[in-house]
C-alpha cells in the first residue's frame, strides 16, 4: 500500500502509511490499543475507504475490483463480530465460499468446507451452533471461513487473542502453512512473542505512523518503550526474540535491560500487553 491516509471524521488515524507484503510472507501489525491496526486492515479490504493513498494487490488497485473479485482475493477475519441469528459451524465456514459460488453452495464448496473443518480440528462440532462454542473455538471458525475461500491475501485481526497456548501455536502453524506458496498475510496481534516467532516481518504502529518495520529484530526494548510505554526486557531464546514486560514506563523503575543471550529457556512465556477489547 502506498501513502495510505485515513481519518474518522476529523480524527486522523493513519498518516501516509507505506507497507508491502510479499507472497508467502506474514507481516505482523503491532501497536497499542487504538493505534490503528484494525483500521489499517479494514482499509486493505475496502471496509473503509482511505482518504488518500491506495492499496494494490498484484498491481491491481483494490478500489477498482468488483466486490466478488475482491472477496475472492482477500480473506478477512474481523476482530469481533456479532451474528443476528445463530448459524452452525458448517454454515458459517460455508459463507466463505460465497464469493466463488452462484446462488447456492455446490458440492465442491461443501467439500472445501469439510477439509477446512478437518484441518482446524473442529470435526465433532460441524453442526453445532456457533453461539454455543467457546471463544477460542469461535475464533477458529472465523479463521476457517477466511481460509476456505483460498484467498491470495489474508487479513487477520487478532485471530489468536482468545486461544490457549496450544491452540495459539496450532492456529499460527496453520496460518503459516496456508501462506506457503502464493498467499500474503497481515496479522494484527498483541502477543509480541508469538509475532516474533511466526512473522517474517513486523510493523510497529504508533500514533498513525509506522514507527518501525522490519524483521522481528526491530522489537528492541527501546522501541517497546516508545510505542507501548512499557519497560521490557528483550532476550534471546533459540534465535528468537523473547519480550518480557516489566512495568509501565512512567510509573515503574527502569528495568530495561539490553538483550542477553540465552538462559531464560525454562521460564514460562508471558503474554505481552495482552488485551481483548
Amino acid at each position, binding site marked *: 500500500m502506498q501513502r495510505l491516509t485515513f481519518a474518522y471524521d476529523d480524527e486522523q488515524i493513519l498518516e501516509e502509511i507505506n507497507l508491502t507484503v510479499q507472497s508467502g510472507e506474514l507481516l505482523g501489525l503491532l501497536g497499542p490499543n487504538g493505534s490503528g491496526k484494525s483500521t489499517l486492515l479494514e482499509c486493505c479490504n475496502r471496509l473503509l475507504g482511505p482518504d488518500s493513498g491506495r492499496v494494490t494487490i498484484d498491481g491491481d488497485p483494490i478500489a477498482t475490483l468488483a466486490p466478488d473479485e475482491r472477496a475472492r482475493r482477500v480473506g478477512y477475519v474481523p476482530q469481533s463480530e456479532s451474528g443476528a*441469528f445463530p448459524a452452525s459451524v458448517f454454515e458459517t465456514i460455508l459463507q*466463505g465460499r460465497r464469493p466463488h459460488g452462484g446462488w447456492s453452495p455446490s458440492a465442491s464448496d461443501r467439500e472445501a468446507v469439510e477439509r477446512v473443518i478437518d484441518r482446524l480440528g473442529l470435526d465433532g462440532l460441524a453442526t453445532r451452533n456457533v453461539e454455543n462454542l467457546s471463544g477460542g473455538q469461535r475464533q477458529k471458525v472465523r479463521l476457517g471461513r477466511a481460509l476456505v475461500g483460498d484467498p491470495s491475501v489474508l487479513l487477520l485481526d487478532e485471530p489468536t487473542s482468545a486461544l490457549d497456548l496450544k491452540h495459539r501455536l496450532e492456529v499460527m502453524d496453520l496460518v503459516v502453512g496456508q501462506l506457503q506458496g502464493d498467499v500474503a498475510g497481515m496479522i494484527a496481534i498483541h502477543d509480541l512473542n508469538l509475532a516474533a516467532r511466526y512473522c517474517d516481518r513486523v510493523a510497529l504502529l504508533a500514533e498513525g505512523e509506522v514507527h518501525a518495520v522490519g524483521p522481528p529484530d526491530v522489537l528492541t526494548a527501546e522501541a517497546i518503550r516508545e510505542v507501548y510505554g512499557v519497560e521490557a526486557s528483550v532476550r534471546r531464546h533459540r534465535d528468537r526474540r523473547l519480550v518480557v514486560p516489566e512495568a509501565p514506563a512512567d510509573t515503574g523503575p527502569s528495568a530495561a535491560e539490553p538483550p542477553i543471550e540465552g538462559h531464560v529457556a525454562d521460564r514460562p512465556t508471558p503474554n505481552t500487553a495482552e488485551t481483548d477489547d
Partner: protein
Amino acid sequence: MTETATAVGERRRRRVGFLGGVALTLAIAGTFALAIGSVQVPLADLLAALTGGGTELHRNIVWRNRLPRVLGAIVAGGGLAIAGAAMQTVLRNPLGAPYTLGISQAAAFGAALAILLTGVGAGSAAGGLLATWLTPIAAFLGGMVSTGVILALVTYRQATPETMILTGVALGSLFQAGLTLLQYFASDTEVAAIVYWTFGDIGRAGWPQVIVMTVVVLAATAYFLRHGWDYDVLDAGTDTARSLGVNVDSLRIRGMAIASLVTALIVSFVGIIGFVGLVAPHVVRMVIGGTERYLMPASALVGATLLVVADTAARTVLSPVVLPVGILTSFLGAPLFLYLVIEGRAYW
C-alpha cells in the same frame, strides 16, 4: 465418509424432509379445505369438479367460492411468512413483522381514509367496483407510504437495522393516532366498516386479487431463493458480509422493499392478519435452524399451511357464522408465539 460429512448430510436430509413434510401437510389441508364447509363435497366429486365435470352446484362451489379462498389463503399465508422472515433477517431482530414497521397501521389508515371519503365500506356488498378496488388501493398506498419513508431514510442515512426499527415504530404510532382520529370523526356505520376492514378476511379476495397476489408472492419467493445465500452471509454481521463481497446496504434495502411490498399488497386485499408472518419463521427456526436458504421457502410453506388451516377453522367452527380469520390467527397466534418464546428461546 468423514464425521463432518455424515453429520452435515444427516442434518440436510432432516431439512429437506421437513420441507417435504410441510408441503404434504399443505396439500392435504388444502384438499380438506376445498371439501368441507356449509356444503360438503366428497373427494370424488371434488376431483370431478376441479377437472370440469361433476354437478353444476359442486363446480360453482369449488370454482367460484372455495378455490379462490384456499389459494388466497395459501399465497397470503406464504407471502406474509416469507416477508416476515425477510424482515427479521434484514432487521436482525426476531420481532421483525409488518406491525413493528408500521405497515399494517399505515394500511389501515389508508383504508379508513378511503371508507370515510367515499362513504362505502368494503363490507357493503352494494359498493361494487369502487368498494372492491378503492379501499385496497388506498390501503396499499398507505402501506407504501410507511415503507417509502423508511426506505428513504435508510437510503440517505445509514441502512442500519436500528434506524429501520425506530423509524417503523414511530410511523406505526403516527398512523395509529391518525386512525383513531378518523374514527373519532366517523359515523357509526363508517366506524363499523373501518373496524370490519381491519379484521383480516380471506373471503374478501376474489379471483383477480388472488391472481395479483400469486404473481407478486411468487416473484418475491424467487428473489429470496436466489439471494438466500447472500442473506445467510448478512446474518454474520455487516463487516463480515462486506468482506465476503456482499453489497450489504442494497441487500437490506431491496429485502425490505420487497417484503414491505408483499405485505402491503396482501394486507390491502385481505385486511390485517396478525402473527402468521411472525410465527411461521420462528417455527422453522426452531425445527430446522436459521439458515436463510431453507428458512425462506420453509417459512412460506408453514405460513401457507397455518393460514389454510386457520381459515378453514374460521369458516367451519361456528358454522353458519364465518369468522374473519384475522381474529382467529390473533387468538391462536399469541399463545403459540408465547410458547415458542418460552420453549425455544435458545435458537436465536
